[in-house]
Structure formats: C-alpha cells, structure tokens
C-alpha cells in the first residue's frame, strides 16, 4: 500500500468541507440549542437508570415555609428592613469601642512615641515630619477608622449571604431595581456599598449580566460608605443641630444624615435609569436569579473568609494608597514656594471656585489629597483650616492631621475658617457626590479592566456633585 493509494481511498479535504457545508444548511435553528437539549435528555436518562428516589423528591418543608414568610407580601419587607437595621446598629455601636482603642494605641500613644524615637536617633525634622507625621499618621488614621466597622459589618453580611437570605432580598426588590434598568442583585451590592464601596464593587461579581453589572459598579458610589458617615454625622451635629432648639437637635441632625443617605439611594435609581438608556444601551443584558436552598451558616469559616477576603483585602488596598497620600498631605503643608506653602497656593487659587460652589478652597484641597480614604477628610480639613487661619493653640503643627474632642471647638475653628450653614450643607452633599476613593477606583479598574469606565465612575459623581452644590449655593443666595 503506497501513499497515493491511501489518498485515493480517503475523501479529499474539499469533499469533506463540501459535505459539512451541505449538512449545515440542513440544520434548522440554533446548534447550541440542539446540543444543550441532547445533553439534558442524556443526563436525565442516565440519572433515571442510576438513581432511585424514595417517593417524590420535593424541597424540604422548612425551606418552603421560610420562603413563604421571607417573601410574603405581608412580612417580606418588614423582616428585611428589620434585619438590615439591626445589622447597621450592631456595626455602628460595636465599632466605637475598638475604634477608640486602636486610635489611642496608634495615634495618641504610637505617634508621640515614634516621634521621640526618631528624635533620639537624630533624624532631621523634615524626615520625621515626612515619615512619622505624614506617612505613619495617615496610615494609622485609616486603619483605626476603617478596620473595626468593616471587621463587624462584613462577617454579619457574609453570614446572611451564607444562610441564603440575600438572594431572597434580591428576589423581593427586583421589581424596584428593574424600573431603573438594574438587576435585583444590585440591592446586595448597594447594601455592601454602605459598608465599603470597594467591597461593593467587588461584590458586583454576583451579577452575571454585563450591562447590569456595569450599572451596579458605576452607581455603587452613591451608597454612602462607612468612611463618609462620620463626616456626615459630625457636620450635621455641629452646624445643623444648632439651628433648632436643643431638644430637637439630635432629631434634626439625624434627619439630615438620613436625608443625604436617601438622596444617594434615589440617585442610584435615577442615574441607573439614565445610564441604561444611554451609554449602556448596547451592552448585553440577561436576567437570572437562582434561589439556593437555605443552609445553616458556617460560623468560623464565614468569619475567616470575610476577614481575609473582604476586610483585609480592602484594608490592604487602602494602606497602600494611604502611605504615599500621608506623605503628600505633609508635603503640601510644609513645602514652601515663594513665601507660602503649596497648600496655601492651592487654597488661594481654588477658593473662589469653592466659594462659588458653596464650599471653600480648604474643602477642595482636602478632597484632592485625602483621596485614599474618606475617613481622613475631616482631619485634613481641620489641619488645613488651622494652617490657613493661623489659629493658635489648636492642632499639632503644619501637615499633622488631628481631630477635636468637643463639637464646640470644631464649630469655633470652622467658623473662623469662614464656614456658614451653606458650607456645611454643601459639604454633606459633596461628601456624598464626589469621586470614589482611590481604593475603590483601583478596584473598579481591576473589575472592569477598562480605564474608560474607571474615569467615567470618577467623573460622573464628581460632575453631579459640582452641579448639585452649585445649584444649592445659587438658590441659597437667591433666597437669603
């Protein structure tokens, strides 16, 4: 048998291709459909042969009963609201104590101790300033404010997730999110965003439809994150609480903070509605939501994974950005060009713009240099205000962030810095509507793999923030 013999017996490539082409034309409909159908019927045949079922397999009655209660018209929503209220309450009250402990350890004790250590080693003032006052203090601040709430919120969230409750929340709320073109699972990522936007963005992985996932990523920043609550509460207490009689002060400031958070939720829907009808129109969209059976949550495993995968993951990213940002904060306050610090130059240039928007130059600079974490915005604002006003006996020196113990002292300092009620209201709005922190931006870049969407997610809330603040300032001046 030789080669040409074999060649003449087997059909040539052209014949085979022609035959496949002919058969292809005869295939009706979608090939994928036929294949899936065949796989399922084959699998069904195999299981019928190999698996015997005592009686008919039905869902456990416990699951059914629980589902009836959790998704009922009567009890579904109240249970949901109650559960999340409890979760937030535990997080906020529970985080205060460890936050204070870490702060006193790292900031009140660690900071002076490090300074004296550097001093003893004969380090020049600028090196001590850059490393201890800048990098160390910035990072310590981020860790002490960020770590405890996340270490409480994430495990609680993961427990609910592990139990199988969160898909039911998506099931209950899908109708609401659908009206803005979003997926019901965005309820979960938004909820996660209240803890931390970076974690919220990572959580959008559960949404498997590309358009709805992008939507969830781009609007996650409208969930007022853990790092912004303290700013809201402080400013509301100091400036808005004092506008009403003392007995109503607490109520008024709480209402103001809740109002801002609800505005964020409203914007999530409005912006989502607009995006899904414009730029995201051509993206692929498919809906599906699986409701897994309930499982007893595995406590230790949940604690471990939520601490490692979520808390430490986010914290590490924040620290990576806080180190250089701490250095920048110290440098802008301490590097002098032409008789004024860099911060002074920036504030002078930015002040007219800031005042036009109902803010001021200090706030704008604080939001630029405190980009690694929203937690350090207020300490940076206080430090810069002391620097600009030249207030004596307050603070710890140029470029050193600090916080004040009494609300009165904060009001005195900020009022000296030219703050009015309008500034306070607009700062609360701008705190909700500005670019996400660098940790979140980096996470968005990692998740979408696109510089375009990262830039969009930064400019979209920032543009909205300028627009809203400008509008409020304009009407404020018109009315007063």
């Amino acid at each position, binding site marked *: 048998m030789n080669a040409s013999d074999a060649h003449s017996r087997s059909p040539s490539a052209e014949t085979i291709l022609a035959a496949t*082409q002919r058969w*292809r*034309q005869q295939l009706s*409909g*979608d*090939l*994928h*459909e036929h294949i*899936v*159908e065949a796989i*399922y*019927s084959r699998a069904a045949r195999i299981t019928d042969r190999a698996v015997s079922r005592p009686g008919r*397999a039905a*869902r456990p009655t416990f699951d059914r009963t629980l*589902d*009836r209660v959790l*998704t*009922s*018209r009567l009890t*579904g*929503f109240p249970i949901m609201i109650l559960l999340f209220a409890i979760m937030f309450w535990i997080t906020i009250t529970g985080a205060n104590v460890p936050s204070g402990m870490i702060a006193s350890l790292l900031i009140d004790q660690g900071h002076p101790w490090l300074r004296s250590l550097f001093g003893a080693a004969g380090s020049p003032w600028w090196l001590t300033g850059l490393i201890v006052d800048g990098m160390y203090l910035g990072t310590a601040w981020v860790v002490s404010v960020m770590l405890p709430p996340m270490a409480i919120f994430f495990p609680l969230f993961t427990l609910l997730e592990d139990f199988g409750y969160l898909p039911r929340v998506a*099931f*209950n*709320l*899908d*109708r*609401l999110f*659908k009206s803005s073109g979003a997926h*019901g699972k965005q309820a979960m990522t938004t909820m996660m965003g209240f803890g931390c936007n970076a974690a919220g963005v990572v959580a959008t992985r559960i949404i498997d439809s*590309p*358009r709805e996932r992008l939507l969830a990523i781009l609007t996650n920043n409208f969930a007022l994150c853990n790092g912004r609550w303290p700013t809201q509460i402080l400013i509301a207490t100091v400036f808005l609480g004092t506008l009403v009689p003392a007995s109503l002060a607490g109520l008024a400031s709480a209402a103001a903070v809740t109002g801002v958070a609800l505005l964020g939720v409203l914007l999530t829907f409005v912006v989502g509605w607009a995006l899904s009808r414009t730029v995201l*129109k*051509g*993206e*692929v*969209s*498919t*809906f*599906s*939501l*699986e*409701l*897994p*059976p309930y499982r007893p949550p595995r406590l230790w495993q949940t604690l471990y994974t939520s601490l490692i995968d979520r808390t430490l993951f986010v914290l590490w990213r924040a620290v990576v950005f806080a180190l250089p940002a701490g250095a920048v904060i110290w440098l802008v306050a301490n590097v002098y060009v032409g008789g004024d610090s860099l911060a002074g130059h920036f504030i002078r240039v930015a002040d007219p713009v800031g005042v036009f928007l109902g803010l001021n130059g200090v706030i704008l600079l604080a939001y630029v240099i405190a980009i690694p974490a929203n937690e350090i915005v207020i300490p940076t604002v206080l430090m810069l205000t002391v620097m600009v006003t030249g207030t004596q006996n307050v603070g710890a020196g140029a470029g050193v962030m600090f916080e004040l113990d009494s609300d009165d002292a904060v009001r005195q300092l900020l009022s000296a810095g030219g703050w009015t009620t309008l500034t306070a209201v607009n700062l609360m709005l701008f705190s909700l509507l500005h670019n996400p922190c660098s940790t979140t931006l980096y996470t968005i870049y990692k998740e979408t793999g696109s510089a375009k969407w990262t830039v969009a997610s930064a400019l979209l809330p920032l543009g909205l923030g300028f627009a809203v603040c400008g509008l409020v300032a304009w009407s404020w001046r018109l009315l007063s």
Partner: protein
Amino acid sequence: MKAGMNTAYTIVAGLVASAVAFWPRRGILARWRQAQELARRTRREDALKHILKSEASGRVATLQSIAGALQITTGNAAGLLEELAAHDLLTFEGGRLRLRPTGREMGLHVVRAHRLWESYLAEQTGVAEDEWHYRAEKQEHLLSPAQTLELAARLGHPTRDPHGDAIPGADGTLEGEQDQSLNGVEPETPVLITHLEDEPETVYRQLMALGLRPGMRAFVIERSTTRIRFWADGNEHVLAPVLAENVSVKPLPEFRPADLVEEEYLSGLKLGERTRVVGLSRACRGPERRRLLDLGFVPGTLVEVDMVSPAGDPTAYRVRGSVVALRREQANLIRVNSGDAEST
C-alpha cells in the same frame, strides 16, 4: 521687540491652524475627503445591492427603481450607472442592466456584511431589535471583505440573519425570496413565519411592534380583501393585506391549528401549577436564549411555579431540582403545554 513677539505668535498660530486643516488623515480637509469618498462608495454599493436583490427575486431593476431605492433623482441615478459601467461593474445589454462579475461580487459582499452585522448585533450585543437594520445599513459599507470573513468565523458561520434571510457564502449566490406571503395562505393552515421584509422600514417597525418574528408559528383565522386576522404564537393579530405582503411564510404540514393553540407561555401559569416546557420563542435570542437553555428550560422539562415576589414580579420556578427566578418578559418567551398543566 513687541512686534517681533507678535510676528512669532502669528506664525505659530498659522502653523497650528494649517496643521489642523491639512494634517494627513487626521486634518479637517483629509476627514472631509474621506467622508466624501465614503458617501460616493456608499451610493455605488447601494446601487449594486439593489440590482442584485432585484435580480435574485425575479424583478427587473430600472433607472426609476434605483433612484427610488437610493432616494436620488433619476438624473443622478443615470450618472451613477454610467460611473459603474465605466468601472466595468455592470453593462447595459439590450437596454437591460446586467452585473459584471466584479460588480456582482461587490454587491454580494455588501449584502453579506449587512446580514452578518445584523446577526452580530442580535447574538452578541444588547442593541435593541429596531436598531439592527439601521446600524447594519451603515456598517455594511465600512467592513472590508477580510473583516467580513473574520466576523463570519467569529459568529460560527451563520447561514441566516435574524430576519430569516440567507447570508450569502464566500463563494455564494444570493437566494431570492421564494416563500409565499401571508396573504396567500388559506385559513386554518398552520405556517411558519420565515421572514419579515425589513424594507420599507416603517412597515417593518409596525410588524416588529406587533411582536412578529421569524420562527413563529401561525395560522390565518379569517381573510377578507381589507384585512387578515391571524393567530401567531399565542396572540391574535389583524393586518392590512399591504402589510401582510411583507410577512413570508412556509407551510407546516405536520401540525393542526389545535396543536398550536394548546401551547401557552410560562407567565400564564399560577402559583403551584406544573407543566412541561415545549420550547423557547424565537423572539428570545443570543445570550438570553443560551442562558435560559443552560438553566434547563429545554423541551420536555417539568416546570413548577414555586413563589411570586411580594412586588408581583419576578416569579420563582422550580426546574430540575433548583429554584430560578425569572422576570415576566422572560417567562413570556418560554412556551409550555397548557394541556399538560396540573396543580400540586
């Protein structure tokens, strides 16, 4: 000194302005030229496409029909034909327009590019259905033959576009529209909708708005000279004959109308009811279709309504041992057998 500075500024400004205007390929002039060139090519290709399509469906392309299809004056159409003849793309033999091989190939390429792009939009993007044709009309002139082949390979060499038109192969000939129109169907005869003519666009949009799609099954209920009442995948429709002319169908001899009517949609099922899946509607395409298939909504599968969201939508279905929530629009795409429905 000051005058010198001014001169320098003027020169720099002049250089910048001329760079903006004359920069190769990016300048205003170059872009304007490209746009002109594209418009010329579009006119040529559209004319060839029109002649080819007329030929394939047994009509004769004339100067008037070309002017009508391209929305230009007959004078311009005559100039265009002369230009095409000069490029050896067509000839006038005995007063009839005939395509030369190069012209035929160009026309085929445009049709292929158009239908492949529509398939691409349908299968791999979320672009709304009523925009496919409009977008493909633009894209067909931008794709090169090589890009078209690449696109075909990426889509798995589809043979038909989402409207049911055959996509001409690389060697290919253009298949004419041979199926009968809905106008010619006797009442009570089950048929399969094979094609919806996408030109003129206003008619096409009306048909789309009624929810008609290729792949749907239908039968005429009654027919008069002014209107046709027919059933298609669960709904009754009324069309004027002039619209029905644009719906192509082919007979389904193996079915009776009663077989078709018994099919219902999953969305019609009530809490606790159980039935079998018959198939997915043709209006369900691309990723959406694959997702539903992967979840187990294939013919023969038992489906049971498990629970309804407190907001009324979505609804959770039990399928192959797992619970999956679907929105109403999706449940509207899954055909089930109503004769089979039972409560648990």
